[in-house]
């Protein structure tokens, strides 16, 4: 069973449906006990970092997620949920994240040439770092497969933890991981069959 963390941020319908579609049971919950009973956790999120982080904290779910991750439970953050895994974000101020993956979240404008539109909206290709083993999330994914992105900020200063990057006028972190903690900047639940394969792989970790 997978717990999709419900903290009042974002649309969880597609995420829940995509797990159902690949034959995995998932529940949308903010209940500590039920989260504890699940074997895997997904942390979703859309919107601004500061709002999401404070919502997560206000219901105490930040500590629940960190505690479960510390037990070794596979955790997958998606989009803003991925950004929350890092130390901090500089989106409209400075906000602390969960600190589960070292690095910070900054505007793509810092590195992306002016001609590129921000947010990045659309399908872009995954590239894997050559100097480390392939992430278990990508066991059925090929270099160059496309996934769907919608974001203006990205995770920087985290290169030892980057498991895939994408080219958008600069190398942009597409995913990162630290042990049992995984994060994808893109939306696997909106990335067609490639995305479903990534979610399936997460269920098999």
């Amino acid at each position, binding site marked *: 069973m997978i717990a999709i963390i419900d903290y009042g941020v974002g649309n969880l319908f597609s995420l829940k449906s995509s797990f159902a*579609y690949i034959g995995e049971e998932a529940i949308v919950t903010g209940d500590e006990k039920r989260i504890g009973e699940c074997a895997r956790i997904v942390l979703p999120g859309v919107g601004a970092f500061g709002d999401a982080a404070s919502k997560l904290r206000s219901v105490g779910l930040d500590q629940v997620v960190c505690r479960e991750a510390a037990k070794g439970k596979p955790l997958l953050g998606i989009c803003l949920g991925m950004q929350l895994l890092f130390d901090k974000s500089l989106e409209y101020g400075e906000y602390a994240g969960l600190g589960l993956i070292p690095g910070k979240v900054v505007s793509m404008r810092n590195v992306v040439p002016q001609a590129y539109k921000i947010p990045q*909206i659309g399908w872009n290709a995954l590239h894997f770092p050559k100097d480390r083993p392939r992430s278990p999330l990508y066991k059925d994914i090929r270099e160059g497969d496309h996934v769907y992105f919608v974001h203006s900020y990205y995770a920087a200063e985290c290169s030892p933890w980057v498991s895939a990057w994408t080219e*958008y006028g600069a190398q942009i972190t597409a995913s990162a991981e630290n042990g049992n903690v995984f994060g994808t900047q893109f939306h696997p639940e909106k990335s067609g069959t490639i995305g479903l394969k990534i979610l399936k792989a997460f269920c098999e970790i």
Partner: protein
Amino acid sequence: MITKRIIPCLDVRDGRVVKGVNFLNVNDVSSPVALAKYYSESGADELVFYDITASFEGRQLFTDILTEVASQIFIPLTVGGGINTVEDFERVLRCGADKVSVNSGAIRDPGLIPAAAKKYGDQCVVLSVDVRRVDGRFTVFAKGGRENTGIDALEWIRSGVKNGAGEIVLNSIDTDGVKGGFDLEMLSAVCDIVDVPVIASGGAGCMEDFTELFLQVPKVDAGLAASIFHFGEVSIGDLKKKLQADGINVRLS
């Protein structure tokens, strides 16, 4: 490199697709679910569902259908038609839409875009604009292109983006239905003034029209069409292969 997107648009009335025709492997061409699945499998990068129902019952059927599509098809879904209030956003987002497109509703209520963007984020709000040249000036039309609002299109789009629209669908009434190609002049003018994605609509008649679009107006992010896909004149799979051969970066599935 981010890819250029190809987006089929499905008009839905009372829960059924209007104008769906013969696809070899689709049994029920007016079933939104069957058609959406077919398009998704043939490489569509996104789907737009346009609700042209007028009645309350039809609207209910539309959200039922949307829920079914969203539980089986995992690519971005945009919904338009009859979006006049923030509650309308809520209604379709709850059923699995990712983006919501506003047109006449935003003209009637200038507060709609900022309110929706604040609540759901800019990425969720698509401003769809029907534009026609009037005395040489790009002018916004409302009510499905029937009513001249007198509003300057470039001003309208600029202020829409400033208020929180995260994407623009530009439909040229001058080229719509003519099948002589997209309105490159109008698209260039819009791409020059906004820095959010612009989706070209109106005028696609053959595969070459898409090549011309992306080569002549490189800032355009996506091409949207309805009838040429529905009538099987152009298959999305073939179109993307051709675009790639023409040096345009697309996602091949």
